[in-house]
């Protein structure tokens, strides 16, 4: 064994010191021949005869050399090194071609690797927890009302924990805002209410101190809370003595028992930022309803760890059985027509589900870009090979086999491709920060995107694969040379053969077809974006600034100064009164947090179920709508039209009859033929408060506001008067032409002047928020536009190349035609023909492919069908225009050829 290794290394060594080994061999052969000659001369031969005899005795010197080399070295490797040296030389001789090739390949490969880097981090890599595939989210659905994720009640959570037999641990997931004091300054923080099992469920440990666990179980909130590394640095200066420190959260005292590591992130949706504070509760004592009631679903949801050996499907089956059993036990809480159900979904897919369609479309797009680059390279190489006909013919004549030539040419293309991949990888690794900053910040797990080994491995594989892909056809084509013919023909400036033109034609047609697909994809997104921009948001965002105010929720209801309607109304009225004194003030309104458009409020429990008085029980709970509380000025300030009935007034207070305003979508869905003045019965209001079911009269109808974004559908919505209920969080809407920064400070000053414990946060202009709501769409659109432009450019180059060759080839013919009296117009038309045919073929094929591929994009489109006519008509026109230009330039050149020159050449 040893000696095999020894030989292997000796061979490698000789490979590296090839020149020295060759010189040594020559010297030895020379000495051998000299000795033989001496011998023959000693036997009496003449020097000339002796020399011949020596050579004869030695046998073929060249053969001996070759045998020696074969034995000495690793032949295939040596030949590859030869090929590489040769390829480098031949590429350096043609730096224009080499740099264009490397650049386009770097773009194609780089785009793919970048998108894969994101896909890998966001979708493929498991979440950074123990056995992340067993982490699931649990949702309550009321399928009878078409309502998903309506929240969970405490008894339901307890059933899941104790009776389902599905989870080894389960925790409520309750993201809330909180006012934090006791650190450097009072601020609003993102808090996550959980049950004590949360950290054990994730298998997460604190970086400093400890996390809470089963032993900390309390009916209300547990005293010990855990903070994030970010909050620790910001509020406590990274001081390790923070453990045991008392802080006030919404006016209640807690003790910090642990700090999480910097990389730890709650794997789920939050209100507006990463979770900074974790607090455990039993949810069965103040501030929560005690005893808990089954139908009060104030918990936004739960997260669980499946028992070992249980698949998601099996777990779902057991939950279905539990639902059926609970339905029999509590027929009032779970009426059959409501079709209440428990649904589980893997945490990872819940977290990243929203981003999946976008990444899928981008992956497909970059795939197309690379294909176009590959086809373009192939066509460039075919063109180039015509210039090398002579070189290849000579090499064949000297005895190179066809396989050897193919290998040589493939080495060249793979080398170019690797250079492109290397450039792409280097750019991605070096510019990771700026590139990630281009991406919409709301993409989950973006911090985990790294261009590391698995991602760079893809860059390597893609380089090799594309090198072979675009190199093989031209290599096979070029190596099929017939030395006899080519040495004669190729001598004449290497005019391209008919065969070569046909091959290039096919390649260019493919390129055009692929470009059409990309252009259609980009076109559909442009059209969607255009439509989304023109959508009426339902309010006037100009000169409108929003500031949010968090109202602390102490655990003891008696300590909550804003638990009833009167103080909330008083606070709002005072803020509005003082706001009038601000410079540049035009108008102002107040609302609950759910009244702010474009704020992610899908998880803050703002859905409400309702019924019509007098309806039978079986009809109950099949209707749901979003709910928001607003002050009387709200619709005036937002300039949302009142369609029927009246707006709220200052007289709608807790002392008067309860009233509601609904939006147009509500009317369309539930009241197609009914007028305002109808009464309905609302089931619950504002999260976990103890509001009984109450009857309410609909007094008005307003236009739809696109609360979930310009490109998202509007849900039925019920507006309630802010002054008739309590609020946990409020927003001030201020219409004013003056600047944002001054306004923020002035507004915060007003609020703090009224109540110093109320944090003001999230001050944005409504126009910023409108624009931010389009970030993802804009991002996808931007990338697709770049890809499509690249595709168009490459296709144009491809067409131009083929046309230029054809025209050059037919110069003589055109010259004759012109000499015989053909008009320039006739010649241009004649010259255009092949290019136009290629383009038409490509566009036709592209449209067929695109009509299939576009359907995959449906979820990214808005107001546009995947077979959108303007796009499918516009793209061919654009492409045809560009292609025509690319054809026209060489065609015009054809008319400029002086007939005499053409005839003489």
């Amino acid at each position, binding site marked *: 064994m040893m*000696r095999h290794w*020894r*030989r292997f290394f*000796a*061979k490698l060594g000789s490979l590296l010191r090839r020149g020295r080994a060759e010189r040594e*061999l020559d*010297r*030895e*052969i020379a*000495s*051998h021949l*000299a*000795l*033989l000659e*001496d*011998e023959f001369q000693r036997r009496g031969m003449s020097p000339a005869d002796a020399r011949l005899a020596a050579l004869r*005795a*030695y*046998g*073929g*010197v060249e*053969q*001996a050399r070759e*045998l*020696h080399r*074969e*034995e*000495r070295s690793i032949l295939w490797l040596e030949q590859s090194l030869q090929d590489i040296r040769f390829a480098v030389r031949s590429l350096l001789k043609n730096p224009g071609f080499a740099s264009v090739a490397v650049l386009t390949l770097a773009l194609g490969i780089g785009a793919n690797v970048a998108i894969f880097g994101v896909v890998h981090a966001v979708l493929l890599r498991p979440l950074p927890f123990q056995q992340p595939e067993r982490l699931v989210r649990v949702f309550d659905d009321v399928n009878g009302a078409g309502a998903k994720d309506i929240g969970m009640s405490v008894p339901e959570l307890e059933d899941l924990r104790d009776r389902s037999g599905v989870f080894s641990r389960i925790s409520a997931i309750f993201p809330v805002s909180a006012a934090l004091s006791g650190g450097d300054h009072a601020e609003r923080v993102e808090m996550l209410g959980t049950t004590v099992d949360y950290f054990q469920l994730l298998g997460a440990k604190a970086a400093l101190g400890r996390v809470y666990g089963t032993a900390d179980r309390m009916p209300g909130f547990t005293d010990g809370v855990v903070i994030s590394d970010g909050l620790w640095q910001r509020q406590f200066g990274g001081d390790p003595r923070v453990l045991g420190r008392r802080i006030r959260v919404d006016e209640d005292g807690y003790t910090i028992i642990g700090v999480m590591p910097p990389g730890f992130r709650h794997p789920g949706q939050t209100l507006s930022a990463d979770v900074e504070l974790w607090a455990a509760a039993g949810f069965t004592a103040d501030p929560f309803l005690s005893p808990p009631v089954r139908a009060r679903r104030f918990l936004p949801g739960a997260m669980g760890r499946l028992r070992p050996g249980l698949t998601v499907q099996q777990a779902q089956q057991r939950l279905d059985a539990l639902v059926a059993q609970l339905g029999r036990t509590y027929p009032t809480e779970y009426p059959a027509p409501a079709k209440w159900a428990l649904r589980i979904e893997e945490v990872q897919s819940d977290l990243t589900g929203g981003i999946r369609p976008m990444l899928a479309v981008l992956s497909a797009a970059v795939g197309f870009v690379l294909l176009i680059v590959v086809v373009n390279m192939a066509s460039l190489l075919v063109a180039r090979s015509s210039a090398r006909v002579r070189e290849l013919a000579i090499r064949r004549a000297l005895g190179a086999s066809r396989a050897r030539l193919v290998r040589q040419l493939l080495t060249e293309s793979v080398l170019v491709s690797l250079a492109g991949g290397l450039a792409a990888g280097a750019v991605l690794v070096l510019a990771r920060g700026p590139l990630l900053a281009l991406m919409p910040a709301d993409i989950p797990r973006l911090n985990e995107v790294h261009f590391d080994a698995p991602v760079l491995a893809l860059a390597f594989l893609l380089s090799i694969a594309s090198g072979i892909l675009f190199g093989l056809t031209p290599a096979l084509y070029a190596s099929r040379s017939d030395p006899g013919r080519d040495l004669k023909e190729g001598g004449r400036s290497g005019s391209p053969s008919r065969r070569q033109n046909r091959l290039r034609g096919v390649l260019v047609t493919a390129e055009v077809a692929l470009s059409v697909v990309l252009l259609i994809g980009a076109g559909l997104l442009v059209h969607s974006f255009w439509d989304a921009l023109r959508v009426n948001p339902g309010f006037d965002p100009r000169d409108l600034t929003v500031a949010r105010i968090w109202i602390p929720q102490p655990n003891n209801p008696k300590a909550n100064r804003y638990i009833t309607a009167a103080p909330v109304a008083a606070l709002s009225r005072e803020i509005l009164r003082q706001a009038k004194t601000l410079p540049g003030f035009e108008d102002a309104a107040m609302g609950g947090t759910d009244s702010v458009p474009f704020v992610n409020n899908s998880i803050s429990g703002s859905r409400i179920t309702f019924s019509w008085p007098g309806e039978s029980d079986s009809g109950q709970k099949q209707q749901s709508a979003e709910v928001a509380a607003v002050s009387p000025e709200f619709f005036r300030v937002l300039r949302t039209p009142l369609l029927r009935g009246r707006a709220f007034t200052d007289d709608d207070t807790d002392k008067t009859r309860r009233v509601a305003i609904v939006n147009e979508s509500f009317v369309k869905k539930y009241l197609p033929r009914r007028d305002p003045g109808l009464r309905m019965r609302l089931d619950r209001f504002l999260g976990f408060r103890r509001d009984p079911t109450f009857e309410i009269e609909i007094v008005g109808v307003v236009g739809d506001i696109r609360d979930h974004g310009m490109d998202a559908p509007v849900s039925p919505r019920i507006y309630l008067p802010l002054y008739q209920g309590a609020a946990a969080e409020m927003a001030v809407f201020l219409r004013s032409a003056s600047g944002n920064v001054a306004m923020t400070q002035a507004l915060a000053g007003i609020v703090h002047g009224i109540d110093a414990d109320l944090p003001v946060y999230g001050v944005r202009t409504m126009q910023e928020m409108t624009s931010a709501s389009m970030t993802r769409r804009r991002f996808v659109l931007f990338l697709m536009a770049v890809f499509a432009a690249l595709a168009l450019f490459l296709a144009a180059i491809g067409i131009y190349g083929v046309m230029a060759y054809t025209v050059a080839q037919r110069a003589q013919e055109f010259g004759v035609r012109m000499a015989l009296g053909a008009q320039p117009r006739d010649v241009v038309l004649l010259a255009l023909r092949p290019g136009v045919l290629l383009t038409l073929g490509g566009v036709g094929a592209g449209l067929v492919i695109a009509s299939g591929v576009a359907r995959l994009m449906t979820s990214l489109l808005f107001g546009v069908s995947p077979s959108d006519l303007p796009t499918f008509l516009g793209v061919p026109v654009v492409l045809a225009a560009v292609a025509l230009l690319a054809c026209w330039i060489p065609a015009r050149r054809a008319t400029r050829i002086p007939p005499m020159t053409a005839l003489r050449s």
Partner: protein
Amino acid sequence: MQVLQGTLDLIVLRTLASMGPQHAYGVAARLQQVSGDLLNLNQGTLYPALVRLEQQGWIKGKWGTTENGREAKYYSITRAGRKALDEETGRWRQLAGLVEKLLGTEF
């Protein structure tokens, strides 16, 4: 007569072991002499065997001068080479005996 692959290595090794350091021509001439021209090989075919043996570390080449003042590369057997020669000789005898026995046996 063709030489069985691998046997040439053994022969060269043996030659170097008994004659001391030799150049390629010397080895070739010696082989021709011993075989009585029965083993008529092109002297160039010796080179692969020499490379193989050298890369295995069994022989070592060193440039020197012949008595006629010509430069030549002298190969000498190494200690590992001697060990290998013993082993290989034993193996060869075993194999040759086996082949002989099989050829002489009536089945």
